[in-house]
């Protein structure tokens, strides 16, 4: 009882300390170590603070402390459903604890990752192709079905798409934000933001209300890879933020898997390069799930004993998951002439001229256009621009 009360008090002051924007992560660790916890820091004299942080920061911290009402602010945060977790708490993710630059405090909205469950980070380009969109959807929905936690950054493109698919499949997903946990960025993902708060978790190491800034994202990425056992790269250009995340993941000793792409696709250049450097290749989803478990077992030295039930559940779920990238079922119920047009489509958008080139000569341009629009009408294709079509990526 007493212990719990003490914990609660510590949280109030952790909230105070972690909401102070002008302090580095390393400084937080040292300061709390010297003072013996956040409350100690609060009560310590500015001289003690000065031993860790610069005089300028001390001034700012003084100013900030004067305005801060610890209890009220903490209550307000609680009302929003936001929790704070520091490295000292037992809820703090074990995966992060071992990192050399583990974030001192995490603001969490929702249910944080549980130990003993594998988790996978799915990352990739914001400006993704139709192919990337498709793979992200399939991957997200499969991980969701297998109840494997999907960690990502809730960004536009691959991140958001995979998380949406995971939630759609009633899975668990964690969104790590580069802004305050109460800020939805990008704004267009507002719906996803709320769903994540309900069915998964939103995590951020930034003070509440922090707007999204470009410099916030690399530190955010280390949490994404840190929370996961395996990192999957779906699409990445040669020079991209995704590859920075991969570097961090490798430093943290995470397994990196890559979805291969065509050598002519600039959006897959980063992925293909990673394959050359020895990254794992993700070919079929169910094979990947098995590999996740192997990695997970090896990592935590579990020999199928304690976690047997979980594993069986996964096996069970796997039967519901298709054996291959599920494009076969779509083909069914198509008249032959539409099927030929459908065959000529791909996940990368193709122009009508290209599509025509793949079809026998008897196809007239008018009938091709009509056929394409019919496929769009039946939601099997999508007109991505006035003259280009792609297969429609379907989660189911």
């Amino acid at each position, binding site marked *: 009882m007493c212990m719990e009360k003490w914990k609660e008090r510590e949280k109030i002051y952790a909230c105070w300390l972690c909401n102070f924007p002008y302090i580095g992560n390393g400084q937080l660790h040292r300061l709390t170590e010297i003072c013996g916890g956040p409350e100690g820091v609060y009560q310590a004299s500015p001289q003690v603070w000065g031993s860790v942080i610069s005089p300028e920061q001390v001034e700012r911290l003084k100013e900030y402390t004067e305005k801060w009402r610890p209890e009220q602010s903490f209550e307000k945060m609680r009302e929003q459903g936001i929790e704070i977790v520091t490295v000292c708490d037992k809820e703090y993710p074990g995966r992060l604890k071992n990192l050399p630059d583990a974030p001192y405090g995490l603001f969490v909205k929702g249910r944080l990752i549980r130990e003993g469950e594998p988790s996978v980070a799915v990352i990739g380009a*914001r400006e993704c192709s139709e192919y990337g969109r498709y793979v992200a959807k399939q991957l997200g929905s499969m991980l969701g079905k297998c109840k494997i936690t999907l960690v990502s950054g809730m960004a536009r493109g691959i991140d958001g798409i995979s998380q949406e698919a995971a939630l759609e499949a009633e899975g668990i997903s964690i969104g790590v934000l580069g802004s305050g946990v109460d800020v939805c960025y990008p704004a267009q993902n507002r719906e996803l933001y709320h769903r994540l708060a309900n069915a998964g978790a939103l995590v951020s190491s930034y003070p509440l209300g922090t707007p999204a800034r470009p410099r916030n994202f690399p530190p955010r990425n280390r949490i994404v890879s840190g929370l996961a056992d395996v990192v999957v790269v779906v699409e990445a250009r040669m020079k991209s933020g995704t590859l920075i995340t991969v570097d961090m993941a490798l430093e943290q000793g995470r397994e990196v898997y890559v979805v291969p792409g065509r050598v002519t696709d600039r959006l897959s250049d980063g992925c293909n390069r990673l394959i050359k450097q020895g990254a794992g290749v993700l070919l079929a989803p169910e094979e990947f799930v098995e590999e996740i478990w192997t990695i997970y077992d090896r990592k935590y030295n579990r020999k199928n004993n304690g976690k047997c039930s979980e594993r069986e559940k996964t096996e069970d779920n796997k039967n519901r998951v298709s054996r291959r990238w599920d494009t076969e079922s779509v083909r069914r119920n198509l008249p032959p002439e539409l099927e030929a047009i459908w065959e000529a489509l791909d996940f990368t958008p193709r122009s009508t001229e290209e599509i025509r080139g793949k079809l026998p000569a008897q196809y007239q341009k008018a009938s091709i256009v009509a056929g*394409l629009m019919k496929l769009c009408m039946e939601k099997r294709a999508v007109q*991505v621009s006035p003259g*280009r079509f792609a297969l429609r990526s379907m989660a189911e």
Partner: protein
Amino acid sequence: MYCTIYSGALLGVRAYLVSVEVDISRGLPAFYMVGSLSTEVRESRERVIVALKNIGLEIPPCRITVNLSPADRRKEGTAYDLPIAVGMLEALEMIPKGAAEHMLFMGELGLNGEVKAARGVLPIVRAAEEKGIKECVVPLANAREGAVIPGITVRGVSSILDVIHFLTAQNTDRENILPAAMVDVNALFDSKCQSQEEKRDFSEITGQEMARRGAEIAAAGFHNLLMAGPPGAGKSMIARRIPGILPSLTLEESLEVTAIVSVAGLLEEGRALVTERPFQSPHHTISQPALIGGSAVPRPGMISLTHRGVLFLDELPEFQRSVLDALRQPIEERKVNIARAGGNVTYPSDFMLVCAMNPCPCGYYPDKNRCHCTEPQVRRYMGRISGPILDRIDLCVELQQVEFAHLREGARGESSADIRRRVVKARERQRKRFEGTNYRFNGDIEASAIEKYCVLGPAEQHCMESLYSSLNLSARAYHRVLRVARTIADLEEDEKIREEHLLEASFFRPSPEYWF
């Protein structure tokens, strides 16, 4: 002595007669000009006196008063020089009294007595004809332009000396001194059609089947067209060839077009009629008055100069938003009303709008291999086009980069003449359909009349319903698809709109969902 000579003034693309009254009386030598005159009209005093002096006619010292009536309307331009000079000569009895009766004069005088070209000869001659004037004496450069109007004799002069000879001669000799200008209108139309075809032909465009088809549909139904595509794909090339697949101008249309060009003072010297469909491609820095028409003295803008033709706006997102927004009303009403301190004028502006744009700042979207623009960038670029303008565009086509192999092969497509034949047929069907209504083309059909003209069978209705839901069409987009489907059916010479027409029409629909 007093006398009256007729001349004309412009009001929009119409004209009215102006009587130039000259009075010469004894008194202190002076030259008064009245009648709400602008500076250049006032200056004609000097030009007239010096020109007459230089051909050897000395004006005796006397008191000269010139009034241009109706005196309350603002007079502009330099075309009053000749009538003033003739009036003075008659008042001084240097030419016989009544020699200039039932005649209209216009033209600018040079100091050596030559007669220079004037603006708006065609509408003024037409107004003269309506008012019962028998003969018009106009600058030689504009004689053919005026001669198009039947029922009136138009004579071209190059010097005021000719005019004096003409007016002093006997009626029988007059024809020998200044022969009437003659224009064979039919021959003009025949010869022009051919030369136009030679100039720019659709067969020069390699590939781009969809864009060609889009242009054909747009031409057939008078729909506005938007072309998107990477730089160098041939957007301007296609746009420039669209006038060539539109039906040739009829005489009536040609007169309308010529009148506007004449009012703007842009008709080539010695040209009788504009027989080609106008095509204008203003630079994207164009100002609002230049596009719409205006300035303190109203002049027709680009949209009126492309009356009955094609207005091509290249690099659409680069145009100023306010300029584009000003296009909304003229597109709807097919005319533009310009109100200035000088009065209200209305210019016709029945044009087909063809726009071209890159899909993103770099131009290669959605080719992700080449385009590095981010989603917000693309969206911002698209956002620069005002929505109301996009709403008035029925067809949208995307052009692809032409592959080198295609260029080498030089696979020639259909010629403009072949396409035009189909377009003419489709327009003929529309003409019959809309007889006795306000509409002329499928592109004009308003939402309220869509049900009446775009009748769908049960199967087509069902197809349209599923298109509506699967493509997330808006009500506006739905009407657009129907309008375009009507035109496609007309092109296929089908009175009934079929499913394939609807599907093709929906392919060409402009959608805000593209590009992000």
